[in-house]
């Protein structure tokens, strides 16, 4: 399991929540009020209407992780919380990186992007936008390589994750 810079374990938590106004606000407010640390957070619709899927990356020891899970369950709109910190998950992040370049360096930037299976999605006279998908490490390392060309802008989504195989974080809802 990954360990963050502050020495705490890094966990991926998926929460399914009903798409009510204020639901996301409640989750964020909870983290702020209880001093839980969010490294990243993404939210989007799911396969079920009116349900959102929230992927949280948090740095926490065991007892804090337990508190996070239990406190999340106290939010009325939260239906299911799953810790996806085990190995059998697919975790991805998407980054858009705007890199400075000129006619001499453009080819090299494109070559690097290629090695990382990243794509050039926009080209201007003095910059390109690189789109890269992968685990955080991969994106971090591409960014550090691109740094010497001059990075103008970075936009990262934060992690989304899913269990491999048939089981899933949304399974509980089938019981009903």
């Amino acid at each position: 399991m990954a360990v963050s810079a502050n020495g705490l374990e890094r966990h991926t938590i998926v929460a399914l929540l009903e798409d009510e106004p204020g639901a996301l606000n409640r989750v964020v407010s909870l983290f702020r009020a209880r001093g839980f640390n969010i490294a990243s957070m993404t939210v989007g619709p799911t396969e079920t209407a009116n349900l959102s899927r929230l992927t949280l990356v948090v740095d926490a020891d065991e007892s804090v992780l337990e508190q996070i899970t239990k406190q999340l369950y106290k939010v009325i709109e939260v239906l299911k919380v799953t810790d996806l910190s085990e190995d059998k998950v697919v975790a991805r992040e998407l980054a858009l990186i705007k890199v400075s370049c000129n006619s001499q360096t453009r080819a090299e930037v494109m070559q690097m992007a290629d090695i990382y299976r990243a794509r050039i999605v926009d080209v201007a006279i003095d910059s390109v936008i690189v789109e890269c998908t992968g685990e955080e490490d991969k994106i971090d390392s591409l960014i550090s390589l691109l740094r010497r060309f001059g990075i103008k802008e970075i936009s990262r989504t934060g992690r989304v994750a899913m269990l491999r195989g048939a089981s899933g974080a949304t399974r509980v809802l089938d019981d009903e």
Partner: protein
Amino acid sequence: MAVAQLDEFVQPHHRRAEGTRLSGSHIICETLLREGVDLVFGLPGGAILPLYHVLPEYPQLRHVLVRHEQGAAHAADGYARATGRPGVCIATSGPGATNLVTGIATAMLDSVPLVAITGNVATHMIGKDAFQETDITGVTLPITKHNWLVMRPEDIAPTIKEAFHLATTGRPGPVLIDFPKDVQQQLAVFEYPKVLHMRGYKPTLFGNIRQIRQAVKAIQEAKNPVILAGHGISISDAYDELQELAETGDIPVVQTLLGLSTLPVSHPLCFGFFGMHGSVYANRAVHQADLVIGIGMRFDDRACGKFSAFAPKAKMIHIDIDPAEIGKNVRCDIPVVGDAKNVLMVLNKELKAQGGARHTEWVDSIHLWKRERPGIKVRHSEKLLPQFVLNKLSEVTKGEAIIVCDVGQHQMWAAQHIAYHNRNTHISSGGLGTMGFGFPAAIGAKMGRPDETVWAVVGDGGFQMTLQELATAVQENIDVKVAIINNGYLGMVRQWQELFHDNRYSSVAMSNPDFAKLAEAYGAKGMRCVHKADVEKTIREAMAHNGPVVVDFVVEAEENVYPIIPAGTTAADLIEEPDLLEQVEETHINLLEGESPALATGSRSNGSKQGKRGR
């Protein structure tokens, strides 16, 4: 009177039929009636006018007009605590709604079922910084169990039903429903929903049997077990079950502040208040226990001191309905999540089937400590000591009155010196420690239990935060008695400055109004008592009067609450009354005859911290 006039021209309505088109305001009232509400506390304003417009049509919904919305929230809270039924308060948008905030936060920390109803600006004005617009659902988000902004009249009834369900089930708590003005006016077909659809809310009510059996085993194996009884006992009405567990397992019971009055003080296994201002013997029992059974309590820092050093020798059983409380503050070996009553019923049955348990030596030794070192007593003095007043109050009311406390030294003395014989007779703002709570909460408690004597025990500081509700008590003729323990100080803060801040008194002395005259000005009965000899007579006279009475007990200014376990320390750091060993005058436990106190505890009486009290 304005109220009478309204009654003349408004036709009182019997319940209106479901399936008819009603205004949002009518739907609110109809739904409240179906939730069993017959009393609401509130104060009107622009954004809630449509609701107030229809209220006179519902005389079954008694509306008590407060003088400040904080009073409405605390009164509804006091009503809820005293009755176990949800308390309802109503306020207008903006300042009305924000005035509820302290009351809502108070209810949140003490798990009280409070339903707050607020008006808001019309839906098309929301977000425009309209006159008296406050995002009250945003403001109260972290201090409610849940809240709602209702944008359509057809959502009113389902939302109110959900709100009452959430407030009163599982771990209870406050909820807030915000109704924009136009939603109160628009028409919709009224349907009171038969069922609720709340997929994300499934409180665990029944304990896991394997864990309950582990608890039974632990109780039988323990030599020195102790039960920590909390507010959850009264919330789940588990009084009988608590007593049965104590007796079947032969387990001493100590109580948190909100756990007082869960077991009669006269019960041989009841050792009363533990924690920061608990007795030496209760704290000593917890400190030496090899098994702690926390029931419906949350191991709060005022009860436990330093978490990592709490009950250092004990195995921990924690029974609570809120899984998030397990292991939050203090380690837990055997968690049992469930409603206290349900869990204890099964636990008692299992324990009985296993032959119960005996801990005679252990119980005897705590009785011995209690005799040797009662710790909580009234020092001999010619002066009027606050502890003496509380003792007399206990005596005259036979420990049977409902005591509603404010926050400060007097609150701790009321916890220490009043012998609570009846169930659910001690009401106090424990978690938030809200000054100003006591008096309005006493109004609510009296309205909920009109046949019982209700005393508000308040400080001269805290009373001044909500004393405007005297007008409410007079207008509604609510027979509540107020004992002001008037020490001329923000006493608890003064005590901390004396003990922990170099004796430097900073902004704690108060010049006060003449409280008796003030009470008379409001139309209540005002009394003043300055001599020890007059205390009993004064209390009796106050109780003989029919209607609100304020008694100003002018007491010794610089008394301290002892024992005290300084914040963040352990029972071993307990500081006792400096002259505990010198003299003992009275105590409700009355177990002191001639015994010389032993000095066997790890406590130290800290003479150097005695401060400037001249005796």
